[in-house]
């Protein structure tokens, strides 16, 4: 005994010793050991990640202030290290916020905002600063100039990794050529092995940010990406959280922060898409979970030997015979009007009857009287009044009313294969649990669904045990549902916000209620899609292709966060034709360059049957081959990534579906383009062959018939279903009459823009043509619509010596035959 005691004393010593060595870990220290989690696992990758974080920050900063971003990135070799410089033309930073933005992990304005933005956690750029500091030992050098400031501020900054606090080591004013903006200079251990990813990142950023100007200077390269538009992305609006997406911790924090007194007010104030009606439906769900529902029993029928009026009369004393009788009858009638009645509904009925009786007879029906009446009636209804209880117990055969009702419910809810006897036995046991509740002070039969399920389980287990039958999960669930459905939500007022604040279980009930309620999808003004037009502009800017298509889907929701998917396709032209198509992935306008294979976007692209859209796809699945670039943009207030380094979009079915629909939408345009191109190719081929055969045939026919060679243009135009534009010139006294005829042999209407450049002034011009003189040449312009199989003519008169030059626009060259 003593030795044991001494051992215990020793252990106390060890615990103390252990406690001494335990201490808080700073975020920065944690990062130091887990660099890979944030995308700094190697020198090559670290450089790309640092560029990415700095550029994302710069774009966000400029856009938020309504400035078209102009970003300069420079990478220099400095001895063993690389120096990364990123400059932007954003609003600049004040001295107070600057150290925190660059030097404190998890500092940011974005984390709590429900709004689409590039960065979210506030880790990115400070992690880059920390990475630079850890690998090179050098501070980050930051220059910032706020709008209107006469001078720029220069800082050198290091992060105290123990405290996660930035320290400014140098601070001075300096001059800078940018009127406003921020410049950060980091020296870090790095290499350029991930050059490909770096270039992809910059190029892809240029594609989805056509409003930004980007410049990248490397030791051996220099790229410039000019703006394609001055139109800034639409400003996003922060939205309040959607009830479907929030978690318990968040709700508890919101509860303690809110000014609202009532839950209804809290819901309407703090959440999006919650009005009075929605709040009420959430509160109903909450009541069901917090208070439970009350069981509604059927009122006695005439066949049953139960006289509710008599029961009320018996329970009512000293109110005069007439008043008592009226009161009793009113209650009995009110109860009989109900198909089923719950305790609180009975209370209401009694209150109404009491008020009526008071008005009619001038007698007061006080609380006690009412309570007595309620109790008397309720006990009759649940078959717990003294006399009936005695009856059922004495003869043992007359089942209680509750058994009969529960039997009906259970019989409907369970499969027909179950024996009536068994169901009856089960109903008896379930009724017994309700009776137990009556005894145990829950005479109102108020139960949560969980409690109800427990009752059902208990009854089912007993049935299994005594009757030797199985009463499985499905049957139990069905019975629970059936009973739960007839139960009534109670009218009790929900607790006040301050009561909920300290009650974790109640708050949890509220969150469950929020999730269960039917609520409209969140608004999308918090999102900023690139838009179809700008996707095409971005693609055109960076890819010299023959064809571009884009699609922007309508917003959808996943886990409470709205999202929009966009897709774009560029095809042909200078895009590399060998190998598989490029897939460009973007999340909130940020290019994703790593972990392509783990990304939902890639999975979707691979699952599409590209052969249907005219692209080559070996084996009928996987990435398509050919000169194509496929881009996908997922914009959301919370893009689900597979990891903290934000390289791949997680496989969320709702998002995958939208990605597929967006790609298919763009691919359909590609298909019709390819089909058209194919038919133009065939037409060209036909034209080439016929262009050879027909003149030969004409020559031979002329030879055989011994005549001049015939004019075959008309025939050729007709054969090719072409549009024929033909000039004929006739001598007309001292001048010449010119006629330019358009003959449409195609099967669609055609609109032509014809410009005839004449070296002398034309007169007697057709009405629908115009003429403009320029440097001694007359431009005759004639825009004409010619329907299928129709003709139109432009006519004018010019002096003898005039020369002509005809230009026709508006018809594909394959479909046009000009002889002028």
């Amino acid at each position, binding site marked *: 005994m003593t030795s044991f005691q001494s051992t215990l004393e020793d252990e106390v010593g060890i615990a103390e010793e252990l406690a001494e060595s335990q201490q808080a870990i700073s975020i920065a220290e944690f990062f130091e050991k887990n660099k890979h989690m944030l995308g700094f696992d190697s020198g090559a990758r670290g450089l790309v990640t640092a560029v990415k974080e700095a550029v994302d920050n710069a774009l966000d900063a400029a856009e938020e202030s309504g400035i078209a971003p102009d970003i300069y990135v420079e990478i220099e070799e400095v001895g063993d290290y690389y120096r990364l410089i990123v400059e932007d033309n954003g609003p600049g930073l004040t001295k107070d916020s600057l150290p925190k933005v660059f030097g404190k992990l998890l500092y940011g304005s974005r984390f709590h905002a429900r709004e689409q933005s590039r960065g979210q956690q506030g880790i990115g750029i400070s992690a880059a600063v920390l990475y630079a500091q850890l690998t090179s030992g050098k501070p980050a050098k930051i220059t910032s100039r706020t709008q209107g400031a006469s001078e720029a501020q220069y800082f050198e900054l290091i992060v105290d990794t123990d405290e996660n606090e930035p320290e400014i080591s140098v601070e001075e004013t300096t001059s800078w050529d940018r009127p406003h903006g921020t410049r950060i200079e980091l020296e870090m251990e790095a290499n350029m092995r991930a050059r490909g990813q770096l270039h992809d990142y910059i190029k892809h950023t240029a594609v989805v940010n056509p409003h930004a100007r980007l410049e990248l200077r490397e030791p051996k390269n220099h790229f410039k990406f000019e703006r394609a538009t001055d139109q800034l992305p639409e400003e996003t609006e922060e939205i309040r959280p959607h009830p479907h997406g929030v978690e318990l911790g968040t709700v508890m924090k919101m509860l303690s922060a809110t000014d609202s007194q009532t839950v209804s007010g809290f819901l309407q104030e703090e959440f999006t898409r919650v009005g009075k009606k929605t709040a009420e439906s959430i509160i109903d769900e909450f009541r069901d979970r917090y208070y439970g529902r009350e069981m509604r029993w059927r009122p006695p029928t005439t066949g049953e030997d139960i006289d509710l009026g008599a029961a009320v009369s018996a329970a009512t004393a000293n109110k005069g015979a007439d008043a008592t009788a009226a009161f009793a009858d009113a209650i009995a009638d009110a109860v009989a009007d109900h198909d089923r009645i719950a305790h609180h509904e009975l209370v209401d009925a009694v209150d109404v009857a009491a008020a009526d009786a008071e008005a009619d007879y001038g007698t007061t029906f006080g609380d006690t009287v009412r309570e007595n009446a309620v109790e008397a009636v309720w006990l009759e209804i649940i078959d717990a009044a003294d006399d009936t209880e005695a009856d059922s117990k004495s003869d043992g055969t007359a089942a209680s009313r509750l058994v009969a009702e529960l039997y009906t419910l259970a019989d409907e809810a369970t499969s027909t294969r179950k024996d009536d006897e068994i169901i009856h036995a089960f109903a008896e046991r379930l009724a017994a649990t309700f009776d137990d509740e009556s005894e145990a002070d829950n005479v109102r039969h108020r139960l949560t669904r969980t409690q109800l399920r427990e009752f059902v389980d208990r009854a089912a287990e007993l049935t299994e045990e005594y009757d030797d039958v199985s009463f499985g999960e499905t049957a139990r669930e069905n019975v629970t549902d059936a009973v739960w459905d007839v139960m009534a939500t109670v009218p009790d007022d929900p607790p006040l916000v301050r009561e909920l604040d300290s009650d974790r279980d109640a708050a949890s009930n509220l969150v469950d209620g929020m999730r269960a309620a039917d609520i409209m999808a969140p608004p999308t003004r918090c999102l900023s899609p690139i838009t179809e037009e700008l996707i095409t502009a971005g693609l055109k800017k960076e890819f010299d292709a023959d064809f571009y298509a884009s699609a922007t889907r309508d917003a959808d929701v996943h886990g409470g966060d709205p999202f929009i998917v966009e897709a774009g396709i560029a095809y042909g032209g200078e895009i590399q034709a060998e190998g598989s198509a490029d897939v460009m992935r973007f999340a909130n306008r940020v290019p994703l360059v790593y972990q392509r294979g783990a990304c939902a976007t890639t999975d979707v692209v691979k699952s599409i049957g590209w052969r249907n859209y005219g692209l080559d796809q070996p084996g009928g699945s996987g990435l398509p081959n050919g000169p194509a670039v496929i881009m996908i943009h997922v914009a959301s207030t919370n893009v689900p990534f597979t990891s903290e380094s934000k390289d791949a979009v997680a496989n969320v079915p709702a998002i995958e579906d939208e990605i597929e629909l967006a790609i298919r939408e763009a691919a359909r345009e590609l298909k019709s383009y390819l089909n058209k191109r194919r038919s133009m190719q065939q037409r060209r081929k036909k034209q080439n*062959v016929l262009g050879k*055969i027909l003149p030969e*045939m004409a020559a*031979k026919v002329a030879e055989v018939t011994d005549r001049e060679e*015939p004019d075959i243009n008309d025939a050729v135009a*007709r*054969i090719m279903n072409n549009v024929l534009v033909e000039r004929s010139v006739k001598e007309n006294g001292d001048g010449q009459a010119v006629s330019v005829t358009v003959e449409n042999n195609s099967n669609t209407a055609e609109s032509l823009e014809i410009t005839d450049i004449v070296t002398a002034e034309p007169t007697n011009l057709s009405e629908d043509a115009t003429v403009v003189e320029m440097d001694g040449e007359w431009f005759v312009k004639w825009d004409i619509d010619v329907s299928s199989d129709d003709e139109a003519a432009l006519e004018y008169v010019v002096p003898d010596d005039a020369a002509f030059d005809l230009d026709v626009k508006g018809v594909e060259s394959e479909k046009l035959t000009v002889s002028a």
Partner: protein
Amino acid sequence: MSADNDQQAREQLIDLAAQFYDQFELGEIPHMSVPTRTKNNIEYDEDKGVWVYGDRESTRSANSVRGARKLLKAVYTIEFLANQLEEDRSSTLRELYYLSESWDNNEAQFSDQDESNGLIEDLEIVSGVTREDFHMRPEESGATIMGPLHLREQTRRGERDIHCQEDVGEGGYQIPNNPDTIEFLDCDADFILAVETGGMRDRLVENGFDDEYNALIVHLKGQPARATRRIIKRLHDELDLPVTVFADGDPWSYRIYGSVAYGSIKSAHLSEYLATPAAQYIGIQPADIVEYDLPTDPLSDSDINALESELEDPRFQTDYWEEQIELQLEIGKKSEQQSLAARGLDFVTETYLPERLSEMGVI
């Protein structure tokens, strides 16, 4: 073979080329329409008693690459034929096919002989001039006549008077490519017996059938050449001789009879000139197979298909042929002419033919 005739043929061809020329000039798509040459587009001409093309036409138009090539070839061929007529030369269908290789235009060359044969048929139909008048001839027909007929043939080496029994060897008189150059001088024959196979023809000659029954034995050599059909037609029309056809008892032989009697699908435009509607079929009939219990072969799948297609052929839609063809499909058997030898070498001349011919009222 007069120069006038040649001149007329040449003009017809050049008119055709001029038609293309005018189409070009009018801005029309050059084209030429010919009747569709399938069995669905032949119909019975009651006035002439032969089968001719119906109203359905196929258009060879420069609208498509294929059509344009066809027309180009047609123009080149017209030029060739016109020159040939001018120079009074002739050539065979096969020579035309090879000759196209020498044309300066690759696109105008024929890819196979069916194509050039088809084109000559097209030109015949469109210009209304027979290919004999274009001076185009088939390779060789080699078909012969044996029997009491005296005729005069215009050859390149002058006129020849020939008696088709006395002036010829066992092989008989060889029918020339253009039988219209023949003049019939004298004829002692009572009827024409056209025979499909060489073996049977030799058997009949050896047994002296032509002598004994005053028969003109014409050897068809399978599907008869135009010249053979033409001379049969002339013998029937000019000398009033009944025509009978003796062939194997299978669907292909019925078609041989069909082309003698009704005209062939390919040359229905010339039916009036080639077909002898009065020709009668001797056998072997399916009924004979049953009646004489001849040695047989089973019908192959292609035989059955051919028989079924004949049932749909308008030329065979008579009670007689429907009955015979259905009988053959029922028994599923066919027999050759020479299977009659199973009853002895003389059975055919002494029993079968006399019986059938008297049944048919020829002798």
